[in-house]
């Protein structure tokens, strides 16, 4: 086991005992839902319904409900897709990579982060299906099944097909990883259960967990290997998403820097989203002792780093465009910064490159309110990043005769709102019925790193 240096900040404050951990976390699940929760859930469901109407019209009337045209064939749909996938990176990344690096501060945040990952990926997955002209066929024709009229298969040259595999693999592996972590905690709740229903439900969910030393040791091996597998997986997912653009011929898309730059961007936005959510959760559930300022500060540092990487990527793109000597490429980038969509480009720059730099100051990086605001700004910026890449590259590509503008219609907004409704509905359900913090893991560090109780 790792020896903790004396001066190391405690990861769990308030002199919690192992039992306190059980009580604090399981308590959330056991007590009646609070008014605030009810309200939050109601709002989420309402949003879901409103967005649902947009989705219905889209599928009923056709993609024409969106503002797309002959020149700009993708806009909000794929922007939202990439944005959600990006957000869906933090969870698994935190759990996996930080586990490999034995970063124990992950322990009190990874559960929520992983949940967020899974829900974000679900939202992301909506778009590849909804953006199809014929989703009722596309959702299964995109799988490697023989075509009805003979063995015409899918096209493995297509990055979209790679996406199908990448996203589904990433989703299922993350889900497993998350659930394995949940089993011992479900067992805890099961054994504290006072009424039949929760006893039955959590009994079923806990898979008959008995905390035996043998099982624990296997459990740790599994966790470690899963982490080992999940890490390259996380990196591969956004790499492959970036191939959608990188392997095309469109100036502004056709760029080899995309994989690393997209991954950095994903971590960037993912951590921001985790912060946004955790700051709320910790407030509502009074978990200040588990999710401490130190956690927030450490995550802010990750945000500075990834934010800076993204910033450098933006600049590199311009350099390469100039260096390549390719006319269309050069125009594409000048057009981004000075063309009709300059406002999108500069919002992106401000939100993604400038705002995170504020975290260099310890004052800001340890200020909850500031962190909260910036974390939201960052995700706005990351949405614009994808919008800029997709729309401004398409709207003026090779033949000036086809240059056109993209104007969103209400359905573009509606479907985006739908995914928000979906995301928060799922997240609030999770926050109520699942242990939001990994009890077993936290317990293992209470003694080692918790503050000693004042006797």
């Amino acid at each position, binding site marked *: 086991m790792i020896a903790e240096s004396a001066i190391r900040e405690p990861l769990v404050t308030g002199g919690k005992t192992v039992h306190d951990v059980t009580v604090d976390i399981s308590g959330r699940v056991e007590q009646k839902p609070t008014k605030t929760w009810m309200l939050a859930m109601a709002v989420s469901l309402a949003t879901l319904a409103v967005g649902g109407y947009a989705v219905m019209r889209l599928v009923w009337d056709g993609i024409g409900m969106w503002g797309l045209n002959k020149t700009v064939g993708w806009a909000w749909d794929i922007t939202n897709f990439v944005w959600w996938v990006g957000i869906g990176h933090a969870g698994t990344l935190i759990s996996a990579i930080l586990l490999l690096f034995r970063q124990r501060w992950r322990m009190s945040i990874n559960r929520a982060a992983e949940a967020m990952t899974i829900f974000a990926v679900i939202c992301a997955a909506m778009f*590849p299906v909804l953006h199809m002209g*014929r989703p009722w066929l596309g959702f299964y024709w995109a799988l490697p099944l023989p075509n009805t009229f003979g063995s015409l298969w899918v096209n493995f040259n297509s990055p*979209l097909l790679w996406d199908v595999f990448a996203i589904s693999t990433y989703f299922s592996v993350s889900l497993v990883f998350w659930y394995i972590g949940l089993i011992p905690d479900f067992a805890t709740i099961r054994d504290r259960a006072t009424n039949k229903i929760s006893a039955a439900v959590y009994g079923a969910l806990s898979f008959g967990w008995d905390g035996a030393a043998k099982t624990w040791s296997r459990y740790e091996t599994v966790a470690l290997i899963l982490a080992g597998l999940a890490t390259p997986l996380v990196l591969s997912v956004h790499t492959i998403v970036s191939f959608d653009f990188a392997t095309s*011929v*469109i100036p502004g898309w056709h760029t080899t820097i995309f994989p690393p730059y997209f991954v950095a961007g994903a971590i960037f936005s993912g951590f921001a989203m985790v912060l946004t959510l955790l700051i709320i959760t910790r407030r509502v559930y009074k978990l200040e002792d588990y999710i401490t300022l130190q956690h927030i500060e450490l995550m802010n540092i990750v945000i500075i780093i990834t934010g800076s990487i993204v910033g450098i990527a933006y600049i590199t793109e311009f350099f390469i465009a100039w260096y390549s000597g*390719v006319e269309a490429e050069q125009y594409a980038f000048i057009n981004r910064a000075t063309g009709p969509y300059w406002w999108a480009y500069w919002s992106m720059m401000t939100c993604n490159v400038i705002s995170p730099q504020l975290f260099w100051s310890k004052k800001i990086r340890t200020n909850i309110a500031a962190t909260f605001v910036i974390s939201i700004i960052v995700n706005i910026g990351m949405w614009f990043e994808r919008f800029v890449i997709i729309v401004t590259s398409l709207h003026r590509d*090779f*033949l*000036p*005769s086809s240059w056109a503008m993209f104007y969103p219609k209400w359905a573009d907004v509606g479907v985006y709102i739908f995914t928000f409704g979906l995301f928060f509905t799922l997240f609030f359900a999770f926050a109520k019925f699942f242990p939001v913090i990994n009890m077993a893991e936290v317990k293992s560090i209470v003694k080692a790193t918790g503050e000693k109780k004042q006797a």
Partner: protein
Amino acid sequence: MKETKKYWKGLEQLKNSAEFQEKANKEFPEYLPIADGEEPSRRDFLKLMGFGIAAVSLAACETPVKKAIPYVKKPVAVDPTLPNYYASTYVSGSDYCSVLVKTREGRPIKLEGNKLSTISGGGTTPQVEASVLSLYDQERLQNPSIDGKKATWDEIDAAVAKELAAVSGKVAIVSNSIASPSTQASIDALVAKYGATHVSYDQTSFSGMLSAYETAFGSRMMPHHDFSKAKTIVSFGADFLGSWPNRTANNKQFASTRKLSKSKQDMSRLYAFESNLSLTGSNADYRTPIKPSQEGLYVANLYNALAKKLGAATVSVAKVEDDAVLMKAANDLLKSKGASIVASGSNDTNVQLMVIAINGLLGVYGNTIDASKAVNLRKGDDAAFASFVKGLNSGAVSGVIFYNCNPVYDHALGADIATGLGKAKFTLSTSDRNDETTALVKYVAPDNHFLESWNDFEPVTGYFSLSQPAIKNIFDTRQAQQSFLTWSGDNTSYYDYVRANWETNVFSKANTIEYFNFDAFWDKCLHDGVFEAPAEAVAAEYAVDAAAVAGAIAKTYSASKSGLELVLYVNNSVAEGTQANNPWLQEMPDPITKATWDNYLTVSPKQAAEWGIELGDMSTQTVTFTANGKSAEIPVLAQPGQAYNTVGLAVGYGRTKAGKVANEVGVNAYQFASLVNGAVSFTATSGVSAEPTGNGFKIAQTQTHETYMGRETVVQETILSKYQKDSQAGRSFPKIATSEGMKKPYAISLWKGHEYPNHHWGMMIDLNSCTGCGSCTIACQTENNIPVVGKEEVLNRREMHWIRIDRYYSSDAEEGDLAAMEKAAENPEVTFQPMMCQQCNNAPCETVCPVAATTHSSEGLNQMTYNRCIGTRYCANNCPYKVRRFNWFKYHDNKQFDKNTAMNNDLGKMVLNPDVTVRARGVMEKCTFCVQRIQAGKLEAKRDGRRPVDGEVTSACASSCPSEALVFGDMKDPNSRISQMLQIKQNEKSVEAREPRAYHVLEELRVMPNVWYLTKVRNKDVESKTEKAEA
């Protein structure tokens, strides 16, 4: 299933087959060629027979389906799935074209140019291509009527006979120019019987030119121009490529002088002096924007310049300043003396006389202009027409018969006619719809559509053509000529009438050794569609008093640049508006402005700015426009090249009673035309004003970006002198940097590539001969069942055309100044670039489709599998040429798209090509190189156990192209036209064009298209860039 039922339901009509047989016989009465059955002519005849039978199936689309009756006897030559072609003639208003009608199971579905006709040159115009849809227009009149009440033909005949007798001597028969001898004869018969007068007018009047020739040559006519012989052409607002009669031939002839090759290193030069940027002007080497009020002076000044050099007497007129270009033109005219054409679109007799004088000086009569041959498509006499209108209002004329014309809408005096009609005792119209004029008459005796009619034509003296029905009457209509004969008491059928007419008048011109009797001759003509026996061109005598004419000109014209002036024009989509209710034409982008579904004031950008018009992405503002004492609120379109202080406005719009497609689209421009000394003038030089209203307006354009941003891999152009020195002049050769230094893009590859063992289809597009007319767009729309999406969707940038013509203006900006390069020059050079799927051999679209819905064929075709497509649109995004089109909505059987008449009503659907799928919602589509035509051609060849011969297989666009700018063919066939012209070299896995002008658009991407472009060569002394530098 549903379809099949519909197909049969018309047979309901045949309750009594005997009666039906009789009907069928009526169509081709008691004549059977004595010739033996092997004669092709006989087969033709039998085909016709078959038609009647198959065609009746259309006769009543609305009757309920009770039972389906199969053919008991299959009509000869009507084989399901096999098309039949019939030579016929398109006619609409004063417009003419000799065509082949393609029919499937008795339905005309496509018109192709008749290659045998020298008058229409084998090409088509957008109006010709679209007219087949007009045949299936639900809003055509479906039966005769009296006072708006349905009537039978017998009732009509009885009533009309009585009425005519009553108003005898005071009857006028009004029509557009009549190029048909037999029709003229039938009218004359009526004229003779009732002492009537026949007045004809043209929607676009040539009265000025006609009377000029009357004065100078003694015969009132428009002479036959032959542009193929012209080395220098000077046009004063004469849009001979865009709106003149026989413009198909004009395009062909003009283009033939622009083609360049190893053997032909010289080309013609075209000067244009005009106010609006016309199709002709946009093809000019030197174009000068002038005001209509200056035109006369320019013409006179040119005369003087020539006269000085040729030692003739000069005339005294004010000199025009900045006449550099004019003098240049004069010198070129002298250089190519006799091989030149000077033409003017002015309707001012004096200007036309001056033009005659110039042409006379240059001795072109008998060479490029043949005054012994009249163009019978423009015979309208505005003076006569004016007096008719006066008579109508004074009561001198109390009976009117309108023969397929709509003067209330399309004549300057329309309003007076409308009032006059109230006073007339007897009014009758034969129009095909209840249009602005027909709505005001008592008797409506609807004429057949030309595809349902027998007729003959003599568009130009000595050139004849026939028109035969390709389908039986869809509605209870009767051919107008038949009506005329009936009313004049002659009860021979019009078919017999035409035939008799030919026997007496035309057969005599034929070489009788060739045809042993008239039947043989007739069958041959019917088969060919044309019979041409032109007389030799002669240098006719003429007399023009130049001095007197100059005097008149000096009075009416001035060099001043002040004061707003109006020039009405005919665009090449809706044209004169006769077919305004045709959605294909409404949605066809104007060749110059690329606007659809509207007319608008074309205003020079400078002026638009002065008026404070806020211009955005397709958004503009309207002005209250006043001319000729009439006002209307009209949107403004900033048009580079528009002469400052002039505005242009297209006629053909603002219909109120044409049908649901055309009504309320744009404003009627004819109301702004006025009678100036006896001729309808399309220009207004005084009393013109425009008041900005500040009201916003959106004009749906398919192209909003003006310039090509100096991208040499897109458009490659040069000037003649440079080309003559280096045939590769203007080409750009992109190179890719590799570890072994710079390389040609095609020298680098990850892959082995594929070979195309059997055929390798390709296309060559000569930017030099493409005049931008847009026939290909509509030809493609007809051939490939391309939906019309309506103004809203065009505004959403979702038009569906598979082939578009990119129109680029030149820019004065410095290379690199991107912002400035977006703006067109004040008087720009224009480049037309037809753009369709490039059928890339390394297609980026294929790679990215997740379901392999778009793949490459072993014949080099980029195939689109509609029923496999799931609509991710990734292919369209990844297409560098942006030629893929997506079905955003369900365009067929959808009330929201009821303007897409070809897919939204039972009758309209008859026009659909059964060989091409109507695409479902949510799938991608694009140009297929007309794969259905390729397959048909291959099958034909296979049946005869041979390879397809070159020209047998061609795409709709290429076959429609009047200037033969598009050449389609098999690059594997070393003798094919395309292989020859491109000097194709077949490598194992790629083709190479050795023609120095041939290039691939965006070569650097290495997508290896199968479409080659030939560089644009302008016949200028110095490139415009250097010109600017010098200036």
